[in-house]
C-alpha cells in the first residue's frame, strides 16, 4: 500500500520523519509543558567548542580576519556629535569556503550527518546556508538536496535566490525550486522521508553550536589585537541562530560585549503572499523572519529550535532597505570592499549606533557575505525598479516597504530604530501560551523568564495581563 501523500497526512508524520532525519529524540528534553531543557539539549547533542574548532579547521572554516573600517568610521564621525563615533570593525566571514558564516553551521551539521552514517543531507533554505551545506557536503562526499522558495506564480524570482541556486548546483547539490508558500515544509518532509537523508536544519544544536566559534573568535581576536573585548557586537537577525550562536560564544569566552540584533524593516509585507513576494529587496535578515522567530523560535523546522535570540539580545535595531543599500555602496567606495547585502544590515545599524557611542569604543559587525551576479545591490535595485518599486533619493524614514526604496540624501539621515524588546518579550510569552494551551507551571514561568531575559516578576505580570 502506498503512503498517503496529502498535505495533512505528511504533516501528521512530521514527528517520526524528524526523529529519523535529525537523529535527536527531542522528547528527552521536554517537560510536557512549555518548558524544556535547552542547555541539556545543547550539551548532549552538540559538540564542545574545541571539537567544533577542529571540525571547522579541517574544512577551512573559521579564523576569519577582523577588518577595521577606518573610513566608514570617519564618515560616521562626520555625522556625529563631537567626541562621538565608535570605531567600526567587521569580521570578514565572506572568506569562509562557501562565502558566509553559514559555513560554520553547515560544517558541524554535515560532520554529524557523516558520523551517523547518513548518505546525504537536505536543507530548506533560499539563502547562504544552502551554499554552505552544499560546500560541506561536497567535501564530505555526501549527497545534497537544497529546497528553495524561489518564484512567484508568474515565475519571477529574486536574483539573489537564483544566484544561490546556481552556487548550490556548482557545488554539486540538487536544487528544488518552489513557488511561494509555507508548504515548502511539506515538500521538505516528503524529501526527507523519500531519501532518508539527514535534515541539516539551521536550528539543530549542531548548527547553532557551529556559530559559537564565531563569538569566541571575536573575543580572542580583540583581546590579542586591542587588549579588550569589543563594546558591542551587532548581528543581522533573521531566524535567530546567528545571534544566538555568536552570543553563546562570547559568553564562553567570558566577554561582556553588548549583543545587538539588526534587521531590515519590512513591516507591512506578508512573507507568504504570492503578490508581495517580489516586492521586497532583501531575501533574509529582515523583520519578516526576525520578528516572528524572535517571538516564537519553535516555528522552525525542528521541534525545538536551538536558536533562541531573545535570551541573548540587549537591543534590536531596525534599518530601512535604502539605508542598507547606501552603506553597501559606501563600503565599496570608502573601504574597497564589495560584500553582499545581508551582513551589511548589521553594518548599517552599526553606522548609526557608532554615533551614540564614544570614539574610544569599538563595535564589531560579526559577518560579511560574498557578492556577485544576482547577489549584489545593483541587480537587487534593478529588479525592484522593474517590479514597480520607486527608487528615490530622500529621507529613509519615509520609506514604505513594497512601495519605495529611499537612498538617504545624506549619510547623517541613516538612523537605526529601536524595536521595543518588552513588547517582543510579551509576544513570546503569549505565543508560548497559545501554542501549548496549558496553565503555566512554576517551571514554565522560570523557563519563560530565561527565554525573555527577564525575571519571574515580569513573566507573572505579563501572564496576569493576558
Amino acid at each position: 500500500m502506498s503512503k498517503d501523500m496529502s498535505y495533512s497526512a505528511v504533516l501528521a508524520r512530521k514527528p517520526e520523519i524528524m526523529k529519523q532525519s535529525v537523529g535527536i529524540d527531542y522528547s528527552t528534553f521536554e517537560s510536557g509543558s512549555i518548558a524544556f531543557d535547552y542547555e541539556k539539549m545543547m550539551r548532549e547533542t552538540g559538540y564542545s567548542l574545541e571539537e567544533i574548532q577542529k571540525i571547522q579547521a579541517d574544512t577551512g572554516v573559521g579564523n576569519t580576519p577582523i577588518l577595521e573600517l577606518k573610513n566608514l568610521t570617519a564618515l560616521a564621525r562626520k555625522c556625529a556629535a563631537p567626541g562621538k563615533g565608535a570605531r567600526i570593525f567587521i569580521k570578514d566571514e565572506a572568506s569562509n569556503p562557501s562565502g558566509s558564516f553559514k559555513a560554520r553551521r553547515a560544517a558541524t551539521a554535515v560532520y554529524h550527518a557523516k558520523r551517523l552514517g547518513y548518505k546525504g543531507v537536505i536543507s530548506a533554505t533560499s539563502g547562504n546556508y544552502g551554499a554552505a551545506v552544499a560546500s560541506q557536503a561536497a567535501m564530505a562526499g555526501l549527497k545534497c538536496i537544497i529546497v528553495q522558495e524561489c518564484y512567484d506564480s508568474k515565475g519571477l524570482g529574486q536574483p539573489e535566490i537564483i544566484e544561490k541556486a546556481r552556487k548550490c548546483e556548482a557545488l554539486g547539490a540538487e536544487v528544488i525550486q518552489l513557488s511561494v508558500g509555507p508548504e515548502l515544509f511539506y515538500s521538505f518532509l516528503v524529501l526527507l522521508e523519500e531519501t532518508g537523508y539527514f535534515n541539516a536544519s539551521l536550528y539543530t544544536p549542531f548548527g547553532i553550536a557551529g556559530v559559537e566559534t564565531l563569538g569566541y573568535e571575536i573575543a580572542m581576536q580583540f583581546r590579542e589585537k586591542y587588549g579588550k573585548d569589543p563594546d558591542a557586537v551587532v548581528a543581522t537577525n533573521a531566524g535567530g541562530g546567528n545571534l544566538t550562536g555568536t552570543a553563546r560564544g562570547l559568553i564562553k569566552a567570558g566577554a561582556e560585549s553588548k549583543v545587538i540584533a539588526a534587521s531590515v524593516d519590512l513591516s507591512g509585507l506578508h512573507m507568504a503572499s504570492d503578490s508581495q513576494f517580489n516586492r521586497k529587496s532583501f531575501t533574509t535578515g529582515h523583520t519578516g523572519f526576525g520578528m516572528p522567530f524572535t517571538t516564537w523560535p519553535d516555528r522552525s523546522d525542528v521541534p525545538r529550535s536551538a536558536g533562541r535570540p531573545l535570551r541573548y539580545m540587549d537591543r534590536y535595531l531596525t534599518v530601512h532597505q535604502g539605508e542598507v543599500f547606501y552603506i553597501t555602496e559606501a563600503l565599496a567606495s570608502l573601504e574597497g570592499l564589495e560584500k553582499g547585502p545581508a551582513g551589511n544590515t548589521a553594518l548599517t545599524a552599526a553606522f548609526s549606533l557608532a554615533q551614540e557611542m564614544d570614539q574610544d569604543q569599538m563595535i564589531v559587525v560579526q559577518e560579511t557575505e560574498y557578492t556577485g551576479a544576482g547577489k549584489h545591490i545593483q541587480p537587487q535595485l534593478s529588479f525592484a525598479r522593474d517590479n514597480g518599486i520607486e527608487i528615490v533619493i530622500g529621507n529613509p524614514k519615509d520609506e514604505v516597504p513594497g512601495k519605495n526604496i529611499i537612498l538617504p540624501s545624506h549619510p547623517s539621515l541613516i538612523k537605526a530604530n529601536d524595536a521595543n524588546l518588552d513588547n517582543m518579550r510579551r509576544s513570546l510569552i503569549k505565543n508560548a501560551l497559545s501554542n501549548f494551551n496549558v496553565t503555566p507551571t512554576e517551571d514554565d514561568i522560570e523557563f519563560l523568564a530565561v527565554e525573555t531575559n527577564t525575571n519571574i516578576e515580569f513573566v507573572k505580570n505579563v501572564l496576569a495581563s493576558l
Partner: protein
Amino acid sequence: MIKKGEWVLIHRNVLEVSDRAPQVPDDTKKVPLEMWVKGYLQGDANIGDEVNVLTRTKRKEHGTLLEVNPTYKHDFGNFVPELLHVSEQVREILFGGESNE
C-alpha cells in the same frame, strides 16, 4: 526532439489550489504550489511533454519538460545611477575639497 540522457529542467504542481495549506494568504491560495527541478531525461521527448528525469541525487522525478541545458540568466541588472550618487557623495564628504582636485 531532445535525446534521452540530456540535462533538462522540468516543472510540476506539487499542491493544486484545492490542496493548499489552511494558513496560506488568500492571494497565494488562488495559485498552485509549483516545483522546478533539473535532471537527466529518461527517454526521448519534446518540450512540453510529460517526462521522467533522474536528478543529481539519483531520485526519480516527473513533470513537464521546459528546457534542455537550462541556462542561468541572472546578471547585474540594469545600471542604477543612484548608486553613483552615493559613491560620489561619500568620497566627497571624506576626501573632497579643492586640495583633492
